[in-house]
């Protein structure tokens, strides 16, 4: 009876019980927000890269993809994102009626186009006590501006 009447330390024990839940929530918010942020930045980078690629003429399938990727990397790096973690799925000139390295895509616009598709494979979502991975993807398709 004397033991149960003593409330010293009760708050501490209760805090210890709920703290893991709070930390889980906090880490969850943080890691999810970071993933959103990276995905949005990748989207922006893909758009900027595609717009740049639209002006690369003539397109050199050997060198031009690297130049376009450099534009995307500059955008990603400005947001402190590790560019080495992001892979290039497709950076290519697709002629009218042509197929893409992204097998789901065929160009039917009547114009040549530039496709930029980036992927952050296995991005790790950390929830303090456990983690999981997801793939982040962004793509943009721009009309290729032919020589005047």
């Amino acid at each position, binding site marked *: 009876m004397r033991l149960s009447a003593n*409330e010293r330390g*009760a*708050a501490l024990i*209760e*805090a210890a*019980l*709920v703290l893991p*839940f*709070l930390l889980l*929530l*906090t880490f*969850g*918010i943080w890691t*999810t*927000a970071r993933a*959103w942020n990276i*995905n*949005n930045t990748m*989207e*922006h980078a*893909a*758009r*900027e890269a*595609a*717009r*740049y690629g*639209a*002006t*690369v*003429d*003539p397109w050199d399938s050997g*060198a031009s993809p690297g*130049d376009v990727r*450099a*534009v995307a*990397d*500059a*955008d990603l790096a400005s947001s402190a994102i590790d560019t080495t973690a992001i892979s290039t799925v497709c950076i290519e000139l697709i002629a009218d009626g042509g197929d893409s390295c992204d097998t789901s895509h065929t160009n*039917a*616009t*009547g*114009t040549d*186009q530039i496709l930029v598709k980036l992927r952050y494979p296995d991005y790790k979502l950390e929830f303090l006590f456990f983690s999981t991975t997801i793939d982040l993807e962004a*793509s*943009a*398709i*721009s*009309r290729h*501006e032919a*020589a*005047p």
Partner: protein
Amino acid sequence: MRQLFDDERGISAIWVAVVALFLVASAALAVDTSGAFGTAQTDQTTADLSCLAGVNELPDTSAGINLAVAYAVENWPEVAGNSVSISGTTGTYADGTGNEVYIEAEHDGDPSKMLVRVTEIQETWFAKVMGQDEITVVQEAICFHQEVRNGTGLLPIGALAGSWNGDLFDCAAKVTGNCGAMSPGSNGANAYRDAVANGIVGDFIKHHGNQNIADPDTGFATIDCFASPCNVSETEPGNMVGPWNQGLSIRFDDPGAVCVEDGWFNCDSLDQVLGAAANPLSSAPAGTEAALGWHNTLYGTYAAAQAASHPNAQHYFFNGGTLDCDSPRLATVPIVAQNQNWDIGDGSGSWPNGRKDMKFIGFYTIYIREPNTIADIGGPIDADIIWFGPDSKCITGEAFQPIGSLGPVNQGVWLVDS
């Protein structure tokens, strides 16, 4: 009763439950808001790239709307399978659930301006609890298609796109006596001499040739070139060495020059013109060429320009500081293209010596390095190419404009608002 209120066991749990409820609600709101922001980002991509694709087709509004829709679907495949509805100069592409692409092919009544508005219905995850089932995301892009129609201070020498090497008057690879001379608006040696001295000022007007052939690149009838400014100018045929040298002598007879040689000749160095040391083009930060719209079609491959080793045409990058914009050594050279499909001249002769029509498609900004003394007049003219960044300012404080203030300086497609 007193015992009940004195007993504080479980108070932390209650507090945590209340705070956790708030935190969970905040997190849920953040998820839905983040989802909307993510959707806005992809929709902006759709609007931008759709607008830039379609505006190039103007003034053909139907073709512009259809191509804009095609690129909207390319970047937003979830709405594929619907049809576009065109009414006048506007078009709508909708899937019946609220998702829509709206296009104005003549935005603000301007036949070269297009608006693309993307509306997407974003279903919520957690806000449903509060009765908010969806969020409407609207993103917009306005762009325009611009052609060069006039200018100030242009040196009347055309450079073919992507192929100019900086030898303004070293005619080794061209026809002796005429190195791409362009008509300054009126024909004749005296007009050409004055244009070398002071630059072409005003609109590009054409006075010869067939008036009835439309430019297939733009759809505009070239007859407009006679009545109003257009993007086509004539060459100045024949031997232009004499007028060129006379014009150059006048150009460099500048009492306001920083220094004078032989009591007559301007000798501003490139560093004096820039107000700072010139940097090689390779010093330009990565991505600059994209940000500034340096178009490979016009200027040649950027990487090749960076690595240029031609002794008579060094490439420099400059962004910031102050420029002696009035220096006669700083000049703008029009980049021209020739295409028999829209060449409305008489067809005689060949570039650069014959009477031809050349389309203005862009500009180089150059620093005229040689001749450096009066004795060099009549010899080769060498020039370096300067790639200006957006922060370049004239001594007077105004932003540097390669060809002055009369008209647009670039050609191509541009986003006005995004």
